[in-house]
């Protein structure tokens, strides 16, 4: 496994951190942390056999966060000099002074052991930034060429987004962490039309983004790579079938939902709803709050008894996985919904201080390690852990679940998504909906969306598949906070069976 990138370790983060923290201490900060980051991004995009664009970006800088006068202050900069480290520390204290006059609740943070100079590197084999642009483009060009050989495919795009992230964190308590993560999101879309019906549509890969290296694209499926050959071979036929499929009849259906679709429903209706900052109102002006308020902990029936949801920042290849969070907290795993009941939240250190009872396992009232900032220029806030639905303990297969449905739909792949500001009402579409008749798949239908209220939906979950159906899905583009921040997060889940869910016909919805 690769070690820390020497190009990062050569940067002067330790010295800058020492200078900044000392200045914050001298100015009277009761807490100060220093975060130095280098985040590299690369996006390569191909359309119809031609390289459409390739862009590399690098976010390099540092931030100082202080508690001074009982208020937070934060400042960031990009000049990697001692003078700038001092200036940024002073600016952070200045921001705290402006804020302290308006603060009615003095900021304090939960305790955490000191980790003196620890390192952590995510699990990957080949750093995608060590692969040439030419080689990456060649893979994507081949994908669009293969897709466009099928008569149903008029146009095709392929792209990959690669990220290499280094973080150094230090605080006045003495913690020093140096970490490195790699992740990537490969994707393709095939587009087609049916001139006779006057319709067009597309079908995208259902490959989830992952905390893996370039081996995810060019490696063997037996070693964890996505099976691109199989998917590139089947998608054009699936698109042709979709273009010729009948439109769905709106109504109430039993649904069998594949992990490639269900991960997003978990993200929106469980992941965000169990972020404590939302439950406490901190996101009320932007991302919203949550119906899962803290007074309902231990009593809210979130779903059926087969619903077991965990939070973690530790699973291998998870997009939110890391050794220590952006407040120097060692990451953990815990229950969020157990036997259908709400039992846990996602925390950072200030919220854990307010509610030490929410991390009962260690008896110290620690945070469970969900602080994250997407850039050295942004303030760490509570961001989502890998929130995952656990499989059944038996060997229930997807076919078994489909076999239990008389008249229903089987949903594969995510597409459109939307949920309200308290995480009640949601609506999702998918890459493909198959009719289920008497326990068998009976071809695709078009124009379907499922719409439900969170607790009704999870309450209708009759069964979950076994471990063989479990897939770690996820997203690169989870948005939250003001100023806006983007986070990557994974969600694992098995195939699951839901009874009596409302299905819309989207053509009918738009008709006038």
């Amino acid at each position: 496994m690769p070690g820390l990138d020497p190009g990062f370790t050569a940067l002067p983060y330790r010295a800058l951190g020492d200078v900044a923290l000392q200045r914050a201490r001298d100015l009277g900060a009761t807490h100060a942390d220093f975060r130095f980051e280098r985040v590299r991004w690369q996006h390569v995009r191909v359309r119809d056999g031609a390289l459409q664009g390739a862009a590399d970006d690098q976010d390099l800088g540092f931030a100082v966060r202080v508690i001074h006068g009982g208020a937070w202050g934060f400042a960031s900069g990009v000049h990697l000099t001692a003078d700038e480290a001092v200036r940024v520390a002073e600016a952070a204290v200045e921001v705290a002074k402006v804020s302290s006059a308006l603060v009615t609740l003095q900021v304090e943070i939960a305790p955490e052991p000191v980790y003196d100079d620890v390192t952590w590197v995510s699990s990957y084999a080949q750093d995608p930034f060590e692969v040439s642009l030419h080689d990456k483009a060649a893979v994507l060009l081949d994908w669009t060429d293969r897709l466009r050989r099928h008569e149903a495919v008029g146009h095709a795009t392929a792209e990959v987004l690669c990220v290499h992230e280094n973080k150094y964190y230090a605080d006045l308590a003495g913690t020093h962490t140096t970490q490195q993560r790699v992740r990537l999101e490969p994707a393709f879309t095939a587009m087609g039309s049916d001139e006779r019906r006057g319709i067009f549509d597309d079908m995208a890969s259902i490959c989830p983004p992952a905390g893996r290296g370039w081996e995810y694209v060019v490696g063997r499926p037996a070693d964890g790579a996505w099976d691109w050959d199989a998917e590139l071979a089947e998608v054009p036929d699936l698109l042709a079938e979709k273009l010729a499929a009948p439109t769905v009849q709106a109504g109430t259906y039993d649904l069998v939902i594949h992990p490639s679709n269900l991960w997003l429903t978990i993200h929106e209706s469980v992941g965000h709803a169990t972020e404590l900052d939302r439950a406490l109102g901190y996101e009320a002006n932007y991302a919203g709050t949550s119906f899962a308020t803290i007074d309902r902990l231990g009593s809210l029936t979130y779903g059926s008894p087969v619903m077991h949801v965990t939070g973690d920042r530790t699973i291998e290849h998870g997009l939110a996985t890391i050794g220590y969070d952006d407040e120097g907290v060692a990451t953990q795993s815990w229950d969020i919904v157990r036997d259908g009941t709400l039992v846990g939240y996602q925390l950072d250190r200030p919220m854990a201080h307010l509610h030490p009872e929410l991390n009962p396992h260690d008896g110290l009232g620690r945070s469970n390690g969900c602080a994250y900032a997407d850039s050295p220029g942004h303030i760490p806030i509570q961001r989502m852990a890998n929130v995952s639905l656990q499989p059944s303990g038996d060997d229930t297969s997807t076919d078994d679940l489909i076999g239990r449905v008389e008249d229903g739909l089987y949903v594969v792949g995510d597409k459109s998504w939307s949920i309200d500001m308290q995480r009640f009402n949601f609506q999702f579409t998918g890459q493909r909906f198959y009719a289920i008749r008497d326990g068998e798949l009976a071809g695709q239908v078009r124009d379907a969306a499922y719409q439900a209220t969170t607790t009704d939906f999870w309450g209708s979950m009759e069964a979950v598949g076994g471990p063989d159906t479990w897939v770690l899905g996820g997203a690169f583009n989870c948005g939250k906070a003001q100023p806006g921040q983007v986070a990557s997060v994974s969600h694992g889940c098995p195939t699951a069976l839901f009874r009596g869910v409302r299905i819309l016909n989207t053509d009918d919805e738009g008709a006038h």
Partner: protein
Amino acid sequence: MPGPRAVGSPVAATVQELVEHALATSTADDCIVIAHHTTSANLRWANNTLTTNGAMKRIDVAVVSFVRHAGGPASGSMSGSASTREQVAALVAAADEAARSADPASDAQDLVSGAAAAEWADPPRETDIHVFDTFAPALGEAFQRARGGGRVLYGFVDHRVTTTYLASSTGLRLRHVQPTGHYGCTGKSADLSNSAWVGGATRDFVGVDPLALEAEVERRLGWGARQVDLPAGRYDSILPPTAVADLMIDAYWYAGARDAHDGQSVFSRHGGGTRIGDQVARPEVTLLSDPAYPGLECASHVAVSSSGDDQSVFDNGLPLDRTAWIDHGRLSALRQTRETAALTEQPVTPAIDNLVLDVEGAAGSIDDLVSDTERGLLLTCLWYIRAVDPQTLLLTGLTRDGVYLVENGEITGAVNNFRFNESPVDLLRRFSHASATVPAFSREWGDDYFSRTAMPALRVPDFNMSSVSQAR
């Protein structure tokens, strides 16, 4: 242990020096450098107290190199935080190498040439936390007033100033200063059963008064004294300018010429080509962008660091002029590069960073629309808007922080929230009344993506509320 000033030997340079150093260092056939100098400051609050606040500064440099291959020019792009000549030189080396190893670009065009603008040598403009020196103490008073009235405030103010320097090996030296600011305040009743929102855009925070915002929140929460539950259905609905902005921004983003030409958008013609020239909206409707629109001024030239469906690095420096996307109801332009303009045989109309909806003959305010409505809904804003069907541009989303019942021209209560399924293009055909166009701020997209809009309020006689949301 180094001394407090011993760390970091590189010497910081001015932004113009960085840009010129990049051009001088590049060994490619041509080079374009775009530097963004950004300072920002923000305050955030919840539960009547400040939460997280910050002041940020960054310099981002994008280097686009061009190398002529036998099959045509190729481009390579590298961008990143940079404040020293050494950092910029590293970006240049990577961009040059990327251009040398890239295949010829499908969007290749002659680079734009020109000379130095008069303001090129001017330093970046900046902001800092003191932009809130008047706002912050008044916000404290607003907290006290809200607490005294049994209300809870949540909100955010952000001010940023970005100075962009664009220079090319073909002589361009362009500078643009973009101040951007916005404010939003959500208020809830003490039992959290009633919610309201006010917000807007500003370039400088002059005149933004937290006490006035709090007073408006109080007025709107007062409308919620009577709660009315209504079922899903089609309602005569008044969309305020902020909600119209929410929807029109989506219509603008989906108006790319590439997708339309390739048969994958609501603006594609059956059988091939785009729908440019078709009547897509009521004849009074004009949807336009204009870099010089008063109060919404934005960059008057293209400045992009990578190519995509609707933008091209080869187009950097192209002048931007007023563009009507829909002109008196007819689709008149789509977002184009020079490459797609040739493909679609249309004028070059690149994206512009503002959007204005004008309804000819419309006058009056949203209050006039309310007073003319016998029974309907008044919305506050929309949320979590996503495309469901690109064929019709059907969007789904939700009402948020205030849906009010209008009866006989008066607001008589607050209604539950709804999920809607609607197409913004179809709404421009179906609306029955419009107010005058005024500055508007999209709640959904204004914070992070698109804050410069001017919109009318629209009354739509049959807005599709697909289901009820329990959110309060």
